[in-house]
């Protein structure tokens, strides 16, 4: 389990403590030894909340992974699941099987975060509702790291934007309330986008329902909450990520804060799951760096480590040796972490095929520049389709092109679609409807003007894709564009920056009238501009007085954006905590859309 670094205030581990004790209470409701059967996707999440030791202290016998067919011996059983129909069916089949065999067991179902009537319905229909005790474990945000909170709902983006399933909005609102309970009331609330505004409305309702008044809060550890819809900036998550952390997610996939490292990569006997967050001393240093710069730091660390080991060899005095030995566990940890990351980055390099990747980045940049001539880009996408490298790449580029240029010309669009079907199979027919529905793809027919994209306007006004005289200059950028190697300033993060600096969304809205969705800003009082605060802080220069801002992405955010916002936090001398419904990458976002059939 992750142990927090002491530096961060407010400490996000409070959230974990809070939900952990709630789980403890639920487990204590049935005394005696018990088995816990947990849904696969919640298993890794549990690592962030409760250790096996904690569960054992609440009389857990064994922890099982929920499977259709399984043997669980004990007489008290807890199922921990999301309120989904599938898991309700599985549990029902277990219970019915036990009943047929005449086994009597105390069943508990813990729904995370809440029970829904559809599950009751299944349990009732299968005739087991009377056999189970139902609990609700209000697990919302999970502190994945000292600056990341996530609901970890893997299909959040699709649920919200594709299926119109707003179940999550309630969870988001509840999670904000939970944060307020732990860290005190949040004075300033800014929202952008339809969903965020809905959540703002919901929050108001919940506060009224729980009779929470503004004065009721003692402390105010978080000064501001900025909530932003993913649909406000769909471009950024489709760009190839270039920071170490982002690249890791793009290629190996970071799942609930862990990466899965195969035995082929590590050279160990088995596959391992490695926690990648600030508790990893090496990862902490390189996560936010451009991938290309990571090897430099890694080799420096290797040299340092060697030096530290050598210092042991040179030790003569017993006391020196003693000191060295006491350092050994830490050195070993560092060593292990270093070797993992060296191997992992090696793996990424081979997987990415540098030359291809460079060429692809070139085209990506061309797309972001919003050039009028799209011929070569279309040709490149066609090549990708025909060479069938991956099914995602051509889709990703098509979506990017559509988003930046306000749609793809009908004749290209039809031909790309047909070629894609012929190349990857006609079952992808619905993929295109899905993408269109999500707003990622758009067919441009008829008159040009109505297809002006807001991205183009932002690009022009904010210089999202800066031009550089040379590649050296590009590498030395000192703004958030560094996460894309200086090639692109992520739009969503720029919006966040603007709202932090201006106290409202007006500056952004002035640039593009077409910018998606309504906004919520605190009426009357606008937050003090950061510039003023900065000067005050200059005198104190302590971390204590820094304000904490939570940026909440509804519908997911990428690691690159988290990296960029961390950078922004340093720039503005404030602490930025990123909260999100889920962490996405172009791969995870598109994968389930493309393979939905």
């Amino acid at each position, binding site marked *: 389990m992750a142990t927090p670094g002491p530096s961060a205030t407010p400490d996000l581990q409070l959230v974990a403590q809070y939900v952990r004790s709630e789980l403890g209470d639920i487990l204590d409701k049935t005394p005696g030894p018990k088995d816990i059967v947990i849904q696969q996707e919640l298993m890794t999440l549990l690592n962030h909340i409760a250790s096996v030791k904690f569960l054992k202290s609440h009389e857990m016998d064994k922890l099982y992974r929920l499977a259709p067919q399984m043997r669980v011996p004990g007489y008290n059983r807890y199922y921990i699941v999301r309120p989904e129909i599938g898991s309700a069916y599985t549990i029902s089949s277990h219970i019915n099987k036990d009943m047929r065999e005449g086994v009597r067991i105390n069943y508990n179902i813990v729904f995370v975060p809440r029970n829904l*009537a559809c599950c009751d319905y299944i349990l009732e229909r299968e005739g087991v509702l009377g056999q189970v005790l139902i609990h609700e474990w209000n697990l919302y945000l999970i502190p994945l790291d000292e600056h990341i909170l996530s609901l970890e709902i893997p299909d959040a983006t699709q649920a919200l934007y594709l299926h119109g399933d707003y179940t999550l*909005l*309630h969870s988001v609102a509840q999670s904000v309330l939970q944060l307020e309970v732990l860290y005190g009331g949040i004075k300033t609330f800014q929202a952008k986008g339809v969903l965020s505004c809905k959540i703002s409305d919901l929050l108001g309702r919940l506060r009224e329902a729980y009779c929470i008044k503004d004065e009721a809060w003692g402390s105010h550890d978080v000064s501001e909450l900025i909530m932003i819809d993913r649909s406000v900036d769909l471009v950024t998550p489709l760009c190839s990520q270039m920071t170490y952390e982002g690249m890791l997610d793009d290629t190996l996939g970071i799942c609930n804060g862990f990466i899965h490292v195969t035995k082929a990569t590590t050279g160990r006997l088995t596959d391992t799951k490695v926690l990648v967050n600030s508790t990893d001393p090496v990862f902490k240093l390189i996560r936010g760096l451009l991938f290309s710069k990571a090897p430099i730091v890694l080799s420096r660390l290797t040299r340092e480590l060697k030096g530290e080991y050598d210092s042991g060899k040179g030790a003569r005095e017993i006391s020196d040796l003693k000191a060295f030995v006491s350092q050994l566990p830490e050195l070993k940890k560092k060593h292990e972490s270093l070797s993992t990351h060296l191997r992992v980055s090696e793996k990424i390099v081979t997987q990415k095929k540098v030359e291809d990747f460079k060429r692809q980045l070139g085209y990506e940049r061309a797309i972001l520049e919003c050039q009028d001539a799209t011929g070569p880009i279309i040709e490149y996408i066609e090549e990708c389709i025909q*060479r069938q490298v991956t099914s995602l790449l051509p889709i990703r580029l098509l979506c990017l092109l559509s988003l930046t240029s306000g749609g793809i010309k009908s004749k290209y669009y039809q*031909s790309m679609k047909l*070629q894609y079907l012929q*190349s990857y*199979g006609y*079952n992808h027919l619905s993929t295109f*409807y899905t993408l269109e529905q999500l707003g990622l793809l758009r067919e441009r027919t008829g008159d040009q003007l109505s297809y002006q994209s807001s991205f183009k306007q932002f690009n022009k006004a904010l210089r999202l894709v800066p031009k550089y005289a040379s590649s050296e200059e590009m590498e030395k950028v000192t703004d958030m564009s560094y996460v894309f190697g200086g090639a692109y300033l992520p739009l969503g993060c720029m919006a966040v920056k603007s709202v932090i600096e201006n106290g409202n969304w007006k500056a952004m809205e002035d640039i593009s009238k077409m910018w998606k969705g309504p906004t919520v800003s605190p009426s009357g009082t606008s937050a003090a501009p950061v510039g003023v605060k900065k000067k005050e802080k200059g005198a104190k220069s302590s971390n204590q007085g820094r304000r904490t801002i939570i940026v909440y992405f509804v519908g997911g955010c990428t690691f690159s954006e988290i990296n960029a916002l961390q950078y922004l936090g340093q720039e503005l001398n404030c602490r930025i905590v990123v909260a999100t419904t889920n962490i996405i990458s172009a791969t995870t976002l598109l994968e389930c859309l493309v393979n939905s059939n």
Partner: protein
Amino acid sequence: DSGPDKDTTVDMAERAADIQASATADWNPLGEIYVKRYSNYELDWGINLADYLVAMSPFAGPLALMPKQRQTSMKSEITIYTLAGKKISTITWEGGRVIELGWTLSENLVCVLEDGSMIIYDIFGQFLYSRIIQREIQTSRVQECKFFSYTDKDKVFGGFAVMTCNTEFYIIVDIDKGKDEVRIKKLAALPDASSKPGCWAPLCKESTSVIVTVEDRVYLLSHLDATLYEINCGKKSATCWMEVAVSLNGKAVALIDREGYMWAGTTDFKSSDTEFDLQLKQKVARVQMQWGEMDYFVLVIDRIMFVKGLGKHWCKYPMNGPCCLLAEVDGVRILTNTACEFIHRVSTKSLNVLRIGVMEPGALLNDAYKEYEGDESHKADEFVRFIKDKLSIAVSQCIEAAGEEFVPKVQKSLLKSANFGKGFLGSEIQPDLVNAFVETCRELRVLNSVRLSKIGIPITLRQYRRLSSGVFVDRLIYHGLYHLALEICEFLKIPPSEGTVKVLRNWALKKVQDKSMSDAEVAQKIKKKLKDANVVVSYGEIARAAMDAKRLTLAADLLRNEIFAQDQVPLLLEMDSDSTALEKAVESGDPKLIHQVLRQLKLKLTTERYYQMLHFRPVAAALYCKVLKETDQEQLLRLYRQESLFVESGCMYFAQSFTARDTDIRKQRLFDAQKEFRDAQDIFATKAIEEHAKLTTEVVKLGLKETATLSEAVIWCVKNRQPRQAEQLRKDFKMTDHQYWWAMIRGLCDIGDYAELDRFSKQKKPPIGFEAFAEVCITHDNYREAAKYIPKAAFENRYHLYLRIQDYSKAADAAFQTRNIGGLDEVAIKAARTPEIVDLVRQMKAKLEGR
């Protein structure tokens, strides 16, 4: 903060003396202690208690009277009064013969009938429930019944016991919990079953049992067994006990026989502190006996009331008519034809201050104040100086003494003394003392207001504290004294959730039953009151009460004000406001609630109506679709079609055509899908599906698996040297040149037929450029072949292709020719290990930059 009443007139010293005199005038010495008889109310109700069954309830609760029935099943009436004789309600009685009336702890009236049934009413005479106590009793019939309440430390417990005609005993408890929760316990049989019991009484300790006497023998009947107790009494002749009384805490018992001989002691009958003979002239027919506190009990024999203290001490009061007694925690309530009285021991608290000649600091402070009031301030000063060190104690004693008093004037006088003393303490005063003062003032003000005869609850401060303010407010609510309850809540600063909210909630629940007002009036009144109080009271609950009272319009009106969707929506469903229910659920954004409504509606409505309902509510529809997707796809398809979502249904049919096992079903699904897309006027999809079907047959003919794509099929043909089939596919599916060329190149490279590839490249100018040839060769790691095509590629692309086949000098050359300095740099980095190249690049760069 001053006394209970603000009075500007200055009390004269004489008046104070009067007050003290009147405060102690009714004290009667009883050995070491004093008893005081105080009349709370004069009754002018024209009732002769001798003709009635009387039931009083503890903690100054209500009182029920019923004319004694001579025969079974006579029409009669039960009337409920306050202790001040004010009628609360009347119950018309047509049932069987009532043996006894009594009250439960929650102030519900219990009628125990001869036929073994019990009927429960609330104080307003509303029927709550009735039940047969136990089948056996129905046949044996009830002979006697006795109510009991047990109060000790923090436990309060009550019920009744019955004795049947065949001398069996039953204990009945938990009456307030409802009809089916009543607990009944049969006790062990009386060993002397043949002889008639003299007297009996329930006894509560760890468990409830009954003390029964048969002549001089005393039995204790518990659930398990009967125990005989020998009482060592000094009386010579054999006694025959005729009355027994047990104290409220179950620790003391008193017995008396026909000749007036008494024995009182512990309930284990081991030790006695009182044996006394009243030496009555004649045998008495009836004795009433109740314990006060542990050191005295009250008896009424004929027209005389005795108060019996410990040992030999006793005193008596004349009674001018019939009366009833009821034990309270701090005394005995006496009801007569003309008054409601209370007799109790004068507590030490009062003695400390008011007893004549006492030298306690409190008494001296009281004297000091009296002197001060009488303008004898030097005397006052002297008194105060005398108790200087004990001033805190003095103040505290005065406060405590005030709390014991019924008469506001006396209370006020004592509190003024306390306040006077407080003044001398100045800033050194302990906060506890200030609190006690303020608290007592508040409490007395509350008690005085409920003691007024129009309310009629003569509760003492000790009883009140024993009940706790919360329970007390509950009682007021139960009595319908909402206004008073509200004021008290505010005055005592009870938190809204336990006070105001509770009162208003109950008030509103009652109000909706008030048929004298129109729906609109009631609604308006409730809304105004709740709004003014600025508290959150569940409108849902009130609306439900209105619905139960069959006032649907009122319910609907009230429900509109509910802010908790959870409380609102289920009721809306019940009221058949389906559409509003769904709307409110959606508005609340609570998925749990939406699911709940959806499920209810699904069960309730026809499919058609249900779909209509969903039509305007995409949020709800989305949730329903999600459920259907996993449970009932056919239903989902029906919904899609109903909503003209042809693309959705088309995609779904199409998806099913891939998963269905049966070939016929697959074909059917494909056909269905095509139809849907045609309805959606989606030409592209219609054609795509057609092509898909065609392709499937073609690939199967070729011997490939069904899911093979067109590209895969063409490549397969190339690889298997079937150019004619490849050509055919190209024609059939109108493949573009680009597509076809890519497939050819990939196929040929896959099988390593580079000669054929070369030939193919020369057929005509490749539409995808020679770069493609080079690229594919490179991915197949064949740099030699790739090198053949690079010179034919466009100039600007050559250098990076050369780079990739690691021919650095050519790469440098190509970059130089296109004047690409960045390209040259790249070459230099790649070829860092070959000095010649690095050198070459440097020269080239110099040349380019030089010009």
